[in-house]
């Protein structure tokens, strides 16, 4: 059962991702991106990481893609003005690189594979919270400092007078 669901959501995630890069219309790409994010969230949920799944949807599908769509709407390029994409050497190279990346991650995944069933509680709110504020506290704080500087930078760029 779990395997079937995994296959299903995995296929949706990969298919959606391919659609994201191949659609001509940015709005279609954005909607497929939401689909992909949902499928990935479902994969998290299958691994009992409910917290991660929820956060995935809230942050990525709920906020980040909304920003994408906000920009798409704001620019609102008419359909006939959309650029025609062509297959170029650069893009083919990209496909090759993507293939290598998949291979590499497959190898890494085999090496650091999580033993099945050991994650029953690893994805809960408590477990994630505990991990963030004990083992990974430094990384967590550095990330927040990074984000803070990004926010300040954005404001500095957007505002003419501070």
């Amino acid at each position, binding site marked *: 059962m779990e395997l079937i669901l995994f296959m299903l959501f995995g296929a949706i995630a990969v298919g959606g991702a391919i659609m994201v890069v191949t659609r001509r219309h940015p709005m279609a790409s954005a909607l497929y991106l939401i689909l992909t994010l949902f499928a990935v969230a479902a994969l998290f949920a299958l691994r009992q990481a*409910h917290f991660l799944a929820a956060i995935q*949807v809230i942050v990525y*599908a709920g906020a980040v893609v*909304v*920003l994408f*769509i*906000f920009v798409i*709407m704001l620019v609102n390029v008419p359909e006939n003005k959309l650029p025609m994409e062509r297959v170029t050497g650069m893009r083919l190279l990209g496909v090759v690189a993507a293939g290598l990346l998949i291979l590499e991650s497959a190898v890494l995944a085999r090496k650091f594979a999580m033993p099945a069933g050991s994650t029953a509680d690893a994805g809960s709110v408590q477990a994630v919270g505990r991990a963030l504020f004990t083992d990974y506290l430094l990384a967590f704080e550095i990330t927040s400092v990074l984000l803070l500087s990004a926010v300040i930078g954005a404001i500095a760029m957007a505002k003419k007078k501070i």
Partner: protein
Amino acid sequence: MTPVFDIAVAVARVAVFFAFVFGLVVIMTWVERKGAAYMQDRRGPNRARILGLTLGGVFHPLADALKFLFKEDFIPDGAHRLFYQLAPMFALAPAIMTMAVVPFGPPVTIAGKTIALQIADLNVGILYLFAVSGMAVYGVVLAGWSSNSKYPLLGGLRSSAQMISYEVSMGLSVMGIIMVFQSVRLSEIALGQGALLFGFLPKWGVFVQPLGFVLFLTALYAEANRTPFDLPEGESEIVAGYHLEYASFKFSMFMMAEYIHMVVGAAVVATMFFGGWQFPYLADKGFVLPGGFSVAVPAAAVLILRIGSFVGKTFFFCWLYVWIRWTIPRFRYDQVMRLGWKVMLPLSLLNIFVTGLVLLYIDKGGF
């Protein structure tokens, strides 16, 4: 026997909650119109009649539904056909999905099995709620954009900006509740509110988190696009905003989505801040009043009182939407943004901070 029983229970739970929410949606459309009318010294709907009875216009939702079904269902020439047709579904689906995690009663034991009166008792209940209701923005944005028309586009833009702004403070405003009740599971939060504070005050969210309640309620109104935050619709400035180009059943889908959001939102407020299904001073065996009095009440009556309590609270908050809508004028766009980022966000952060301090103090043996 068990799988059949399980499935039957699951179906029953979904059916009951569906019936509750949709029934309330239908009633709310009438309440909104009639309430608006009486607040504005008008009569409101009083025409639709069955067998010569008007009953103050309660048949109007039925008439409205029929009208929606039979109106011309057109698609504007310049619209993006696919996205235009998808948008109402994007609006309605998340609205319906949000109901899944709201508990409408305490767990019941039937035939030796404990059944939660809740469609799905997720261990990330609140987060699920935010995740799914956050999706609702796509319906609005997609509708606004795909109509290929000026006002809808403005409505869509406003909506996306507003949603992002208020989702932040909404999420932070319930942090206090999560900290106090030590769970993100709505059933546990409802259960936790059965205790008493200082021996006489029910330990409802609103009493332990008054600021959190105000912030959450405000953010909820913004998320549900209700006045004073109904900028994406703004009928007096952008005509009807994002659903301007919609008619017939597609339009009614947007309407339904809005009302389902309202009803579910009301249920969530009731659950998190007003004890959910908890009836004041009512324990499992009967009333336990402060001062040591107690009155025994049969278990069935307790259950009925508790579910009734939940329904009553939900009703009240549904009414509050209407009440507020016909009292407060719409904010200006910049006021909405200022309120969201410069008032609500700092206040909700402050709330978390103070809550943390108090909890720490209690942990250390205070009170």
